[in-house]
């Protein structure tokens, strides 16, 4: 039965309504002080009544599926300790990862023959097992299996990126050439650092003399997309697609990819034959 606001209030305040009418006349509906004509309407659509439906707004994020949750938890590197998910402090992660990487040289392991067993055995007095387990899972992949022993390899890109972040952690800009040298020296022997790995964690300014680099991570940016673009263009006036992508990728959807986002929120131009993006509204 379709209502108007007045009838709704009557119902909500618990008053009763009365249908009145004889067989030969139209039915009316009466409240205490008003009379309504009752009309019958038809619809060809199906109207399914659902008690207790949870609307989108009240679903929130807590109803993310288990799989989605696991993906996200893995992405932010949440560690389950005694039934609670925790995030490791950056410095602590660095300390534990350093212990782990130091074992490579100590044991003269080839990079693709890391032993999980020896790693855990060597560090068991220094690091809780749950933390070791988690970091080992985040940072390694399985390689070969020999005599029933599984060997692992550290994810080179991930290790290099993390160590670059360690170097760039302190505020301020660094001489790019010096940074590259320090970075190369900080990673385990045999791992190759590459400038492309800095995408999303640092900005390199090659227009200055000397060239400089500084740490710049997505986490430091505002969540609001307009604000984010503002901050990005304030930090650096012109970006190539590759440079800016890591900072806006999380807003891209199937229908609105990174390029479409840039078309919408930035101005495209060409600089030395390279397509670059800058702020839409110049001040």
């Amino acid at each position, binding site marked *: 039965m379709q209502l108007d606001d007045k009838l709704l209030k009557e119902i909500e305040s618990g008053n009763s309504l009365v249908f009145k009418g004889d067989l030969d006349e139209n039915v009316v509906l009466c409240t205490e002080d008003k009379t309504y004509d009752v009309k019958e309407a038809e619809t060809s659509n199906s109207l399914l009544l659902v008690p207790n439906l949870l609307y989108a707004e009240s679903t929130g994020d807590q109803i993310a*599926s288990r799989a989605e949750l696991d993906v996200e938890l893995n992405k932010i590197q949440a560690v389950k300790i005694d039934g609670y998910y925790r995030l490791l402090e950056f410095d602590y992660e660095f300390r534990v990862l350093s212990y782990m990487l130091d074992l490579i040289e100590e044991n003269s392991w080839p990079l693709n023959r890391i032993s999980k067993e020896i790693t855990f055995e060597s560090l068991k007095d220094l690091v809780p097992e749950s933390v070791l387990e988690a970091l080992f899972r985040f940072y390694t992949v399985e390689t070969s299996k020999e005599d029933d022993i599984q060997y692992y390899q550290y994810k080179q890109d991930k290790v290099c990126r993390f160590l670059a972040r360690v170097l760039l952690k302190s505020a301020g800009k660094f001489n790019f050439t010096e940074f590259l040298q320090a970075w190369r020296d900080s990673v385990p022997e045999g791992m190759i650092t590459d400038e492309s790995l800095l995408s999303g964690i640092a900005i390199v300014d090659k227009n200055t003399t000397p060239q400089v680099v500084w740490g710049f991570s997505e986490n430091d940016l505002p969540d609001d997309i307009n604000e984010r673009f503002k901050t990005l263009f304030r930090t650096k006036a012109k970006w190539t697609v590759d440079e800016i992508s890591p900072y806006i990728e999380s807003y891209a959807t199937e229908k609105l990819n990174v390029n479409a986002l840039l078309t919408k929120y930035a101005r495209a131009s060409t600089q030395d034959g390279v397509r670059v993006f800058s702020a839409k509204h110049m001040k």
Partner: protein
Amino acid sequence: MISTALNFRESESVSGVPEWAIVELQGLVQMKKEATVGRTVIGDLHYYQRNRHPVLVLGHHILNGKEVKLEQPMAVIEKVDIEGKLEYKIKAIVKKKLLFKSRPKPIISHVSDKI
């Protein structure tokens, strides 16, 4: 990405009259088995995490819809016969509906992992 949303929760308006929702579809939902008694699962309702729009998966079809506030609220009434005196009990009021008015899209197996 889609999140599962069929957790049920007791929703009541201020007065204690339960608030229900309407799921509006064009046409009829036809079941293969006729005359099922009691509760029947007809499909899965989810909300896109991206835009919060509802999406209904019915058999091999997917329907994209939207949440709409009813211009005029509705009351769900039930006929009760109390000692020969006819009364209508107000079971619930409805203020919002999920409207699925677009044509159902078929789900083809090789793209089904997208959904």
